[in-house]
């Protein structure tokens, strides 16, 4: 009898993995159904013969196993007589806080480059460049209003080119030396009538797009403008004098109208270079064709889109919303929303895909927390509270960027936080 009950509570599984170094035998193994992730991980470690155990996560039908095997089987009505294929991946280790770089004001935007350089835009109207040791290599002064978005264009060993957009309705292209304190504004882009919320550079570095509160998306070329264009009428002489008089003014190539409210975010498709995605407060996510300069598709949801991110690994768009939900969109399919993840307690102000994984993304929210998601799991993998758990003031997270293995976040508490995260591919 005891044997039969044991048999009943056992199931044949076949373990597979995409990580070559952790491959185990292909044959089916009989395992008790009451095992959870930890038990299965022990089995894998035993099979591999590791002395120092490596934690694994287990995926059945593209879903993380978060319960015991039996509960999962009952829930999904899977027969225990079949062989179940379980994929396993090395667990993501909890992110470790690395360091934090103090700023003078709220950090509205951050971008990292190869884990070596970090570009931040701040509400004190300045753009800063940091290196990993927290050294502020450059402070780019020029904007008249808080910076809303920054973006890398090119990075060489001793100099960088970057873009910054600001509430003063302009986008500036900067060229800065990493060796000394020299920097200059390459050109100033004028054309928006509202705060420029987002700027995104085309993968080919020939064009960039900007989204603004004036509900328009402008497309700009990277080329240096031929002339310094003075707009006498628009800029009073005093102001002109105040600015660097040699600043060249750039005009947009084209304007794309479609959104009926402020556009909060714009991003290029890094695979299909002809595509541009944008999200706005009018609850819509729009897909634009750059060549035709038309709104190809519009996907609507219930709430305002506050930030979007595109992953070239999975081809999916993740968006953060004002109803505290992270939504996943597949721009290639007709379906509106692919998945929705709810766990945040306030607006999701920023979102970023992992550059290494097609499943992982990170989101930052006004509830002062950062959550790391694996889209195969309905619950977040980890929740980070950069300001500490007792962040009573709820210092809002305004920006986030996943740069290789480092998660960068900045917000209301004037600090750029660096979290180390070893991700799985």
């Amino acid at each position, binding site marked *: 009898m005891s044997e039969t009950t044991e048999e009943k509570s056992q199931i044949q599984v076949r373990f597979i993995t995409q990580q070559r170094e952790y491959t185990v035998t292909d044959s089916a193994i009989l395992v008790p159904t009451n095992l959870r992730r930890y038990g299965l991980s022990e089995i894998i470690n035993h099979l591999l013969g590791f002395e120092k155990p490596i934690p694994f996560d287990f995926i059945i039908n593209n879903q993380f196993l978060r319960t015991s095997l039996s509960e999962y089987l009952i829930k999904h009505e899977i027969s225990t007589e079949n062989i179940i294929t379980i994929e396993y991946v090395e667990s993501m280790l909890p992110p470790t806080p690395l360091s934090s770089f103090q700023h003078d004001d*709220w950090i509205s935007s951050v971008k990292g480059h190869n884990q070596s350089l970090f570009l931040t835009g701040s509400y004190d109207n300045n753009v800063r460049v940091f290196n990993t040791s927290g050294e502020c290599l450059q402070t780019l002064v020029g904007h*008249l*209003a808080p910076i809303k978005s920054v973006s890398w264009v090119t990075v060489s060993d001793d100099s960088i080119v970057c873009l910054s957009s600001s*509430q003063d309705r302009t986008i500036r292209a900067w060229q800065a030396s990493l060796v000394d304190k020299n920097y200059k504004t390459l050109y100033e882009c004028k054309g928006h009538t*509202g705060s420029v919320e987002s700027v995104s550079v085309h993968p080919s570095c020939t064009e960039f797009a900007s989204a603004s509160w004036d509900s328009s998306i402008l497309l700009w070329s990277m080329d240096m403008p031929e002339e310094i264009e003075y707009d006498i009428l628009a*800029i009073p002489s005093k102001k002109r004098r105040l600015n660097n008089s040699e600043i060249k003014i750039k005009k947009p190539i084209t304007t794309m109208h479609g959104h009926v409210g402020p556009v909060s975010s714009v991003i290029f498709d890094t695979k299909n270079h002809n595509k541009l995605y944008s999200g706005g407060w009018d609850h819509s996510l729009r897909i634009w064709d750059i060549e035709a300069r038309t709104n190809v598709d519009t996907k609507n949801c219930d709430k305002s889109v506050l930030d979007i991110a595109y992953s070239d690994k999975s081809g999916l768009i993740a968006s953060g919303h004002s109803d505290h939900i992270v939504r996943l969109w597949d721009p290639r399919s007709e379906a509106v929303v692919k998945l929705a993840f709810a766990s945040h307690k*306030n*607006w999701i102000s920023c979102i970023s895909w992992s550059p290494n994984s097609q499943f992982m993304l990170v989101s930052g929210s*006004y509830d002062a927390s950062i959550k790391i998601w694996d889209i195969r799991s309905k619950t977040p993998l980890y929740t980070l509270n950069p300001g500490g758990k007792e962040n009573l003031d709820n210092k*809002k997270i305004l920006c986030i960027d996943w740069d290789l293995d480092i998660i960068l976040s900045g917000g209301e508490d004037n600090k750029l936080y660096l979290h180390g995260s070893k991700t799985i591919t």
Partner: protein
Amino acid sequence: MVRQRRNGSNKQASKSSPNTQQDVKKESILSSRKSSGSKGNTALEKRPAKSQLPREEEDSEEEIILPNVDIDLPSDEEQEEESEILSTDEEIDHPDLSTEEEKETTGDSTESEEDLKTLNIASDEESENDDGYIVGDSLDEDELDDMENMKLTDDNNNDSDQGKTQEQYITGANGYPRRLLPEIDPVYDSDSSTENPTNTVGNIPMEWYDNFPHIGYDIDGKKIMKPARGDELDKFLENMEDPDSWISVKDVLSQENVKLTDEELNIIHRIQSGEFPDSNYDPYEPTIEWFTSKPEKMPVNSTAEPKRRFVPSKWEAKRIMKIVQAIRQGRIVPGRVQVQKPRYYDLWTDSDQPREDHVMHITAPKMKLPEHDESYNPPEEYLPTEQEKEEWENMDPDDREKNYLPKKYSHLREVPAYGRFIQERFNRCLDLYLAPRVRRNKLNIDPDSLIPKLPNPKDLQPFPTSFTLSYNGHSGRVRKFSIDPTGLWMVSASDDKTMKMWEITTGRCVKTWEVKETVYSVAWCPNKDVWAFAASFLNNVVIVSPTKISDETIFDNTVQYITSAFANIGDNEKRDKLVEWLKPTESQKSEGFLVILQHKHNKTIKKITWHRKGDYFSTIASDASNQSILVHQLSKHQTQQPFRKTRGMVQDVMFHPIKPLFFVATQRFVRVYNLMKQELTKTLQSGVKWISSLDIHPMGDNVIIGSYDKRLCWFDLDLSSKPYRTLRFHTKAIRSVAFHKRLPIFASCSDDGNIHIFHGMVYNDLMQNPLIVPVKIMRESHQIVENLGVLHCEFHPVQPWIISSGADHSIKLWT
């Protein structure tokens, strides 16, 4: 003939003279004693009793009865004839006399009837006795008495003599000695001397004595010897000799032949012939109708009245005597009414006595049961402390929770009388008497059915549901704020004498203006092309255009639009005495101030309201009597005073979003003026006491007002001047109400710290009433400071977001 004869014979028997009557009696007795041995005799003896009644009748009603007898008795008569012939001759001797006598007696007296009856019996018997018994006829009654006495004396004499001489004893039959008594010697003339000794053996089979010489014992116990008996020849001879032998029967007891009497022979003869043995029995007697079967006119019963009818009843007398005795002894009290004893009263019953049902009867409320602390010896915890006692005594008697103080007594006997007893009982009675007790009929209505069927709030999305962020920076009450028409910026006015401009989505304070005075009101110009807002402090209104944030072109347009009218300032001074339009100083200009309107009435301006086109705006200073409402034109720097005279204190004004209407809310009414026709078109009667705020639906046909007495009234202008709905959900004064510009939601905020969100759908169909559904309450959205909660709320122009400001110095965004 026959009858007569018969009568005669009857009479003969009875007719014997009074003297002889007694003799006859005696004889009859004797004869009966004599003939007791024979059956025939006994039968004869019984007869008279049977025949008594008919005889009686015969005597009284001769004529009626007799005819019947005629036919029946021929044989009898013959017999009787015979017997008469055979019987004594004496009777025939004086038939006349007897008849005479009889006639006399019958005619004379009925009293002697009874006597006669008895006589008849006797005479009957006598007449039927045979001759042998008439031996003693000669004896008188007196003689008989004498004889008896003599006999007694003789006996006595004999006894005395014998006792003197000797006493003889013999051994009796039982073995004991028996005194032998001397033979009674009957004296000469003794009547019984001639008589045969009477055998006393009784009615036994006499053959028992066949072998004995005697045949029994006489009365003295002497053997009666068998009479001598001759042989067969003697018998034969005797028979031959005796002519009566053929009518003789041997008497077993006496062993002698006894000659049968005529009567006995007659009986025998009758039996043999199958007739009734009694010749006098008439089986065919006519029925006597004691109670007649026929109806009678005068029903008189022929029966004699019984004696008991007129003799006092003995038993009744006895019974009455008993009662009389009982009354005398007092066991019976006359006149006392029997009272039924009351049944036991159930002291511990739960309910009152069940009363018969009556619609109007309502039982009195029960008295409160005593509690523990009313005990004479209450538990310690019920006893008041000194402090409590003191408090109680100092309290006004009417305010006291209980009108007694629990007190402890060691014994029940030490408890004093309760002084307030009468007063309390009086009050109780007074209460019962005065309190109108009404029977209420319960309504059997399901309370759920009364609630209107409202859609689920989830289906009415979107509306703000949760807190998103707060705009921190003010250090005083935020009285008012205003969201710019694009929905990106907000400016707030605070008691800390500053105005702040905020980025709505991030909560970032973009700009701060320091003003010397409390800023009461701010309002963005609704025109999107004019980047400016108006703010009020003291009697000043400033038009401010925030620099650096907006597009330069718009900014420049704004500046030009607002300040261009300064060119004809000279005219202004002449014609406009209400308000002075001032140019800002240089320092003010750098902060974006464009125009300063200095009101001449010098009263604090509480509110600024813009016309939808952004050219006209109205200012309210409620204290400034007829200048409390002024309408300014921004482009021309002109001020108008629309009302010469204000009715009541102006609380709020609004321009109609579409039509040229102007809404003025005073304390109790909302008046609607047509600006084109310059007339009052409508007065909305709110029914509230103090209107605090007013808002108009973007379609323009519905108005909501909030009031300081907690009510929110929704007016449908097409429907009525009375509120379509009055919502009373807040627990404190409503400070502000607001419609969303695009979505069907409206909100109210109150001093209780709550913001209520309602779904307020207005349909294009005029027949359909607006739908109002409460969808969300933001509880404790702001802290209550000095009894002030949420001071202002306003919807985002596009998004379903609401922003609220409170007395706790904060502004909050709800999404």
